[in-house]
């Protein structure tokens, strides 16, 4: 396996670094899930709750049924099979029956000839609600009425916590957390709710096959787990539900959970017509899960020389109305809370709760983003307290192979923490820019009407890490199928979701290398053609798809040789080295490692802040990231730059605002994502230290930049302003302290 590392050169499979899908995407020919059409199709529309918490008294569909062009109006009574679904725990109703638990929860669905007819019919579905007091404060959720009295996440081996509204309670205890040091720093930190804000709205088309089964073409991150949630709700065997990957307009975790899949399928099966559903932007904001808002308390103790002695943290995340992946997010948040530092004594308490706020689940960085923000602020506080250079303090405590995580796991793979810190710190930062200058280059841009008198410059530094692949004993595998034809050309099947990250090119690159031919095509992903690839998440897909395609190619070549060159068709399953659960009471490893691999990134940021106006400008970012082995430098840089932009968004502008659980800014007018003018130039250094257990030494690269960038940007803002800035996104008011 390792011999291939040297021969796998960037650009081998894609001359001039062009992605396989680049040309159809620049010409507009690439078919996204919202672009699909089928003959005779209807349009679906969802009726959603205007309340964050309410009892449903009655649903009257009679007027809607009689509207022009309407073919079906369905409610919870029409769900053919299981009434609930969920990624890990089936706690979410397909359509709400007795009560709604969040703003925007689906209550009824409509199919009509024209989209506008469907919208008008949806508007006259009369749902009578009796509003209930919403549980919106995560701090108090465990003292309030249980939103899920049947406790769907109990009995899954988690720490016993009988309080109401607990999704998962975590405790990580390592060494003696009471150990004292020469210096102690503490702080409370808070992160607002971020949205994935992928540009391609939730959408797809469900086509009945005329024999009771259904084909669903959809933008998703995991075809097979969609199928396994959809089929029981339709009352169908899994093979009667075929999920096909349509073009995906970004994902970032927000497509791990189902959106319109079951609804479109129900309407299609009822009407015996293809049904297309497309959310608009407002509906998209309520139609998928978000990044968990978090409140974190941390206390760090260290020796006078700067050696960390003990870290204690409490992490509270708001899971919203349904479990989604909250249990895994809180586990990750806690497991990586300390950061990539060696600390002998650790106590981390974590809690994910149910509330009536918008449901939260996976988003790029998955728990590590939240705790990195707190832990890195703590490292800077400690450096200031001890009068040690912040970079030196981090180098002094850097966790390296052979060191121990807070979970007791000894780092066995690659983890070049010191190297990424040194490399990031060595990138030269730009000179301070002179005044006066074009207003477009002032904090706040052309809206800044000063001459720059209030501008202060700041430099910040942060380090972040997280796990690669699924953890804690999850059976994490990927399947690939390779058909070699008589003429030596090949077709690869792999159900890995191409969400823009470029896994298509990874697959083609590996197959072309392994098969020794350029004549390789990748078939479109479908549950009908190949086994599960697992999820496009947890920075796992490059590693897992490379492993599966490599194994299938090698098996196909062997089989072909055995058969004397005849056509072969071989499917293989790849698994990364096994992981094991954490002890629920101590958070320590049990029969072996809980995480298969780690990746670390360091980032230096230069900002300018107008301290009079509270406006900010990120001037420059330099970063070094542990990437294992880069299969394509362009693709890796793209992940670093894009992942950093999302971290910048969380640092400076992105927050879903809720009042009593009701989202107030479900639009791109009010929920701001970084524009071209908000993003600075980014200098990326790739630290290549092959991961020993991974095919070709690759590591996932998508998440570390998002983990580290929020922390690094706010560190620079603190440096510029001298303010604590313990909450993100940082608002102008926080900077001018009004």
């Amino acid at each position, binding site marked *: 396996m390792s011999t291939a590392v040297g021969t796998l050169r960037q650009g081998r499979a894609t001359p001039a670094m062009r992605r396989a899908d680049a*040309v159809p*995407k*620049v010409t*507009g020919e690439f078919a996204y899930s919202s672009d699909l059409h089928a003959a005779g199709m209807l349009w679906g529309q969802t009726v959603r709750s205007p309340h964050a918490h309410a009892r449903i008294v009655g649903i009257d569909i009679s007027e809607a049924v009689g509207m022009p062009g309407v073919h079906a109006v369905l409610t919870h009574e029409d769900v053919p099979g299981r009434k609930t679904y969920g990624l890990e725990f089936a706690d979410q109703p397909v359509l709400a029956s007795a009560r709604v638990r969040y703003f925007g929860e689906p209550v009824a669905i409509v199919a009509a000839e024209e989209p506008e007819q469907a919208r008008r019919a949806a508007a006259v579905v009369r749902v009578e609600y009796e509003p209930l007091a919403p549980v919106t404060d995560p701090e108090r959720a465990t003292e309030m009425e249980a939103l899920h009295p049947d406790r769907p996440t109990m009995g899954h081996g988690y720490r016993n916590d009988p309080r109401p509204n607990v999704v998962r309670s975590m405790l990580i205890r390592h060494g003696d957390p009471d150990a004292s040091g020469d210096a102690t720093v503490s702080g409370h930190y808070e992160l607002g709710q971020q949205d*994935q804000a992928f*540009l391609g*709205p939730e959408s797809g088309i469900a086509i009945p096959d005329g024999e009771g089964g259904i084909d669903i073409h959809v933008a998703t991150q995991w075809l097979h787990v969609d199928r396994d949630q959809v089929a029981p709700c339709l009352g169908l065997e899994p093979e009667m539900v075929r999920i096909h990957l349509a073009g995906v307009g970004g994902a970032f975790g927000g497509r791990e959970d189902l959106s319109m899949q079951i609804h479109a399928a129900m309407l299609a099966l009822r009407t015996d017509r293809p049904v297309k559903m497309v959310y608009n932007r407002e509906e998209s904001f309520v139609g998928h899960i978000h990044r968990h808002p978090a409140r974190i308390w941390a206390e760090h103790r260290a020796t006078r020389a700067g050696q960390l002695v003990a870290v204690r943290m409490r992490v509270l995340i708001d899971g919203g109305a349904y479990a989604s992946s909250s249990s895994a997010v809180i586990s990750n948040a806690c497991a990586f809370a300390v950061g990539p530092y060696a600390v002998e004594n650790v106590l981390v308490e974590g809690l994910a709760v149910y509330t009536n706020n918008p449901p939260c689940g996976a988003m790029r960085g998955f728990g590590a983003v939240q705790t990195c923000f707190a832990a890195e602020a703590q490292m800077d506080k400690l450096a200031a307290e001890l009068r040690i250079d912040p970079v030196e303090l981090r180098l002094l405590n850097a966790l390296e192979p052979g060191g121990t995580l807070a979970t007791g796991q000894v780092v066995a793979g690659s983890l070049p923490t010191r190297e990424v810190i040194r490399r990031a710190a060595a990138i030269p930062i730009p000179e301070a820019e002179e005044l006066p200058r074009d207003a477009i280059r002032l904090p706040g841009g052309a809206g800044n009407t000063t001459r720059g008198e209030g501008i202060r410059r700041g430099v910040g530094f942060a380090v972040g890490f997280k796990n690669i692949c699924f953890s804690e004993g999850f059976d994490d595998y990927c399947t690939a199928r390779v058909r070699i034809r008589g003429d030596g050309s090949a077709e690869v099947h792999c159900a890995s979701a191409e969400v*823009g990250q470029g896994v298509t090119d990874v697959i083609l690159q590996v197959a072309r290398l392994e098969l020794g031919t350029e004549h390789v095509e990748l078939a479109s992903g479908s549950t009908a053609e190949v086994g599960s690839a697992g999820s496009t998440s947890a920075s796992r897909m490059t590693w897992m798809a490379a492993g599966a395609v490599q194994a299938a190619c090698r098996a196909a070549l062997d089989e072909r040789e055995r058969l004397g060159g005849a056509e072969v068709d071989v499917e293989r399953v790849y698994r990364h080295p096994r992981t094991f659960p954490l002890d629920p009471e101590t958070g320590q490893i049990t029969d072996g490692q809980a995480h298969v691999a780690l990746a670390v990134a360091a980032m230096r940021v230069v900002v300018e802040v107008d301290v009079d106006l509270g406006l900010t400008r990120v001037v420059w970012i330099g970063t070094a990231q542990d990437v294992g082995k880069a299969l394509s430098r362009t693709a890796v840089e793209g992940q670093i730059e894009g992942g950093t932009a999302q971290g910048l968004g969380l640092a400076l502008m992105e927050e879903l605002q809720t009042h009593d659980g009701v989202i107030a800014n479900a*639009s791109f007018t009010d929920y701001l994502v970084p524009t071209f003018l908000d*993003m600075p130039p980014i200098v990326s250094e790739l630290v290549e230290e092959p991961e020993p257990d991974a095919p070709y030494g690759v590591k996932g690269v998508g998440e570390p930049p998002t983990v580290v960038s929020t922390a690094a940007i706010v560190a620079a803002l603190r440096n510029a302003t001298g303010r604590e800035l313990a909450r993100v996104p940082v608002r102008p008011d926080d900077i001018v302290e009004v």
Partner: protein
Amino acid sequence: MRIELTVNGELLEAEVWAGESLLATLRDRLALPGSKNACEQGECGSCSVLLDGELVCSCLVLAAQADGHEVVTVEGLAPADALHPVQDAFAETGAVQCGFCTPGFVVAAADLLRRVPEPSDDEIREALSGNLCRCTGYQKILDAVREAAGR
């Protein structure tokens, strides 16, 4: 109501309802889904087209307003089987990831380079700040527009 408009050089007719956007007509009635439906409220630029040569968000133009006018979409930016220099540069530099914003960026960048053949980086950033991209962080889009300007 019935409208008649020239799209990518071809005279087309469509039966639309009064409140329908030009974007919906292009995508759902004229089989031109290249212009994208990311926000449908004029904030993201994914639906950018040229209306009588002027860059507009087609989600903010009523189909009825386009009656008798000329529209160029991403599908008509270059002759069939050829790429506009901006399209070629986007493909070349890694400016495309999920690609949902790409058609809008391509149309807006082509419009910029027609007006300002050698834009500065600030001019590129400013001109394209009405187009949102969630994947790339814009750096490789900047590279692409510089590259296209140099051709």
